């Protein structure tokens, strides 16, 4: 029996492996498990290789997990393309279609000795049961259900929902394939017990408000909740689902989606809508962010609220358009010319996307500035159980409008103590002003004076001082006195959280800091966190270790804190981080025992 199982499956696009994964997590979530699924694809539109990783556990997990417990290869060529995403190790039970001709002795997994390996006549069984190859994924589901015990009624219920609308016959074929898989599993028990611990099926009251969704969809929903009324954007993988969700829903709330002619027009229209007084948003991925950068600078100097979501993918340029990387942090913080302070928020899981998006709108509106949400393919397209979100505990902030008294002598960019000046909008009598990319005086009139430029830069930077004090946006965990520090952000943070738990369980004293507000850097909070730290790691999925280097710009990071980083599409696994932490701990012990005699 196990409390936590990770299943990885890969096949070619038409095999329906991702939809099998969806059926599995839907059923598991309904049965009350914490379910999480990440997807990874080849670059092809149809066909090509596709894969999913499903993790099902009896309690909350924070990452897609480590090496697979169960690997399913519909064909090896496709499976092996996901070598770093679907890690097979000594603990893994490997299942594959015997039609591939691969046998136990010819497994294409050099250097790995899986716990069990089983060639299953997937194609043959499917044809016999369903009369078509198309139901292979349902047969796989039957096998998985049989071996893991994951709620078969719930899976069948989901399958029925999916197939019945496409015809009775197709549904019947899939039902037969599922049953064939189930009985094959019963007749061929695995040598490793992969049965998931049973949990009591949740009552209606318990499951009320619990949802299963992905990062992109919940980001879009959060935008509507936060009051977003305009979205301008251009389709780009892996962010497009945000626009698609809003294109279905935003009209109901009096809002508009503009599918623009290009990335620049998308953000420019959003800036226009913001100037007109509406909360507005755009979403893109790295290459689109490159194009939008000039307009972001405009929004900064014209002090217009705007939320921009960058769902990161591998870069530069087209890079790895369907895969995850955290390589856009420099771009988020520093792209664009001139002196600009740009708030950057990063969610670490699907549930975070809701909080972070609402927060992004609040910050944008409060400080009249563009705010970047750095999401990532891994979170945006990951489906996960989200515990009920009580929307009444969120405060929704809207920009500060000028009072009637202020309108008598209105200065749009009044140099206030907080740096925030009440913002008018077209339609308000007495509030007319010139918004401009050109530097301006308090009234908004163009100015090329060095003194005025200094004054305005001071004012704009002053607005965000308060943000650095938002310690609620820096999550810390573990013993504050722990000598070993872990820092991570975005899609790597969940992995580190699990690694820390593993480390602490092994008696290592590790603490963790995860900034949801990644930039500006809260120098004081980091300095306090690093106080007394003897060693540590900054973990992230980018070749250069971008957060690590930015931290060193702003904070006196102890020299014994190192960067643990690597390129995208090679996600870290909790066990790997744990191993590094153990190494770190050993060095520390060494240092202590070496140091002691010298002092004597």
């Amino acid at each position, binding site marked *: 029996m196990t409390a936590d199982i990770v299943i990885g499956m890969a096949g070619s696009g038409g095999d329906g492996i991702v939809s099998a994964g969806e059926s599995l997590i*839907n059923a598991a979530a309904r049965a009350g498990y914490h379910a999480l699924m990440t997807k990874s694809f080849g670059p092809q539109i149809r066909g090509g290789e596709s894969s999913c990783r499903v993790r099902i556990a009896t309690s909350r997990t924070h990452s897609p997990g480590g090496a697979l417990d169960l690997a399913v290869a519909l064909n090896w060529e496709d499976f092996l393309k996901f070598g770093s995403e679907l890690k097979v190790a000594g603990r893994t039970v490997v299942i594959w279609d015997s039609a591939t001709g691969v046998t136990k002795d010819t497994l294409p997994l050099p250097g790995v000795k899986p716990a069990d390996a089983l060639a299953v006549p997937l194609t043959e069984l499917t044809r016999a049961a369903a009369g078509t190859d198309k139901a292979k994924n349902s047969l796989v589901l039957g096998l998985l259900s049989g071996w893991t015990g994951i709620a078969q009624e719930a899976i069948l219920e989901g399958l029925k929902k999916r197939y019945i609308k496409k015809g009775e016959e197709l549904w019947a074929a899939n039902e037969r394939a599922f049953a064939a898989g189930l009985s094959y599993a019963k007749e061929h028990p695995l040598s490793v017990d992969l049965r998931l611990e049973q949990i009591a099926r949740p009552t209606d009251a318990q499951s009320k*408000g*619990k*949802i*299963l969704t992905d990062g992109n969809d*919940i980001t879009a*929903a959060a935008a*509507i*909740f936060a009051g977003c009324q*305009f979205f*301008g954007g251009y389709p780009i993988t892996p962010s497009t689902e945000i626009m698609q969700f809003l294109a279905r*829903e935003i*009209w*109901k*709330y*009096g*809002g*508009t989606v*503009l599918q*623009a*002619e*290009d990335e620049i*027009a*998308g953000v*420019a*229209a959003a*800036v*226009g*809508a*913001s*100037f*007109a*007084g*509406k909360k*507005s948003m755009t979403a893109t991925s790295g290459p689109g962010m490159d194009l939008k950068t*000039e*307009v972001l*600078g*405009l929004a900064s100097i*014209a002090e217009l609220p705007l939320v921009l979501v960058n769902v990161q993918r591998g870069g530069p340029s087209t890079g790895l358009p369907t895969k995850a990387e955290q390589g856009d942090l420099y771009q988020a913080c520093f792209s664009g010319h001139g002196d600009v302070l740009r708030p950057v928020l990063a969610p670490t899981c699907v549930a975070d996307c809701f909080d972070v998006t609402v927060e992004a709108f609040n910050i944008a509106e409060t400080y009249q500035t563009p705010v970047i949400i750095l999401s990532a393919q891994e979170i945006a397209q990951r489906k996960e159980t*989200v515990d009920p*979100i009580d*929307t*009444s505990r969120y405060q929704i902030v809207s920009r500060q409008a000028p009072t009637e008294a202020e309108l008598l002598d209105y200065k749009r960019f009044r140099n206030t103590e907080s740096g925030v000046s009440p913002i*008018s*909008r*077209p*339609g*308000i*009598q*007495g*509030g*007319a*002003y*010139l*918004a*401009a*990319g050109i530097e301006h005086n308090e009234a908004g*009139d*163009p100015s090329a004076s060095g003194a005025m430029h200094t004054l305005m830069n001071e004012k704009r930077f002053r607005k965000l001082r308060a943000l650095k004090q938002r310690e609620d946006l820096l999550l810390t965990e573990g013993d504050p006195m722990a000598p070993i520090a872990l820092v991570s952000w975005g899609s790597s943070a969940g992995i580190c959280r699990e690694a820390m738990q593993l480390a602490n369980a092994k008696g290592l004293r590790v603490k963790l800091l995860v900034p949801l507000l990644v930039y500006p850097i809260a120098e004081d909070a980091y300095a306090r966190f690093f106080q007394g730290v003897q060693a540590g790691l900054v973990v992230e999925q980018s070749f250069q270790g971008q957060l690590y280097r930015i931290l060193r710009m702003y904070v006196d990071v102890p020299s014994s804190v190192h960067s643990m980083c690597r390129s995208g599409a090679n996600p870290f696994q909790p066990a790997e981080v744990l191993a590094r932490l153990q190494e770190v701990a050993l060095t520390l012990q060494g240092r202590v025992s070496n140091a002691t005699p010298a002092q004597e």
Partner: protein
Amino acid sequence: MTAQLNVVSPKDFKSELKPIWCPGCGDYGVVQSIYRALANIGRPAHEIAFVSGIGCSSRIPGYTTAYGFNSVHGRSLPIAQGIKLANPDLLVLCAGGDGDGFSIGGGHLPHAIRRNVDITYIVMDNQVYGLTKGQLSPTAAKGRKTVTSVYGSIERPINPLLQVLSYGAGFVAQGTPADMPGLTALVEEAIRYPGFAFVNVQSPCVTYGEEHQQMKAQKATMKSLSTLGHDPQDFLKALEVATHYGVELHTGVLYRHPEPPATYEQQIRERQTTLSRDALPRERILELFQKHA
């Protein structure tokens, strides 16, 4: 305040900002024609949003009392559309030069037109880059010598009139500050047209322009389309007139759609009204995911 009296005069639209334009610049006439047209329309300045890009002419919103947005080079049209879609009750004007509109921002023009957002787009076309001091513009005649086309330009110029007609603009006109009453009437008519309206203004550059482009020369050569008996409802004739761009200076309305189609924002309002009937309250938006779970 004047706006409350509901009677507005051209000077209500003139701001206190002093233009950076050279003495004798055609753009002085253009801004005057806008003051006058807006006074004739009668909407108060605070209900007007005036967007521009970058260039000499793009300074124009600042010289009015409307809400102005002097944005970045080439992006005035998408910004203007965002404003209009966010608040369709506003009167939205958009202006800029030929470089802003037909070169760096040229990709936005067909899309603004195909959406038919109710915006009036005024281009001050002087066939030269003035702000950067005299480089070749996309509407400059072939063979034109400038500091960046020292031996004469090799490429053909863009024909903005033909472009916007072929993109399907419902209102297309050309004017010049050499004929102020005519220009004022065109701007006013463009604003009143319910849909995307385009006015190309031959607004000469006194510093980098050529002799034959100046106002004095224009006065001698311009031909009024109404005097020529042009029927602005005749699309094919309008295309024919447009082909003379760069050769002859035609002024007046080239084309006015006889039955203006519904604007983008009108269709959005209908959609919003219909769909809002089955909206979950915002605070219950996450229930959308429960249906699928």
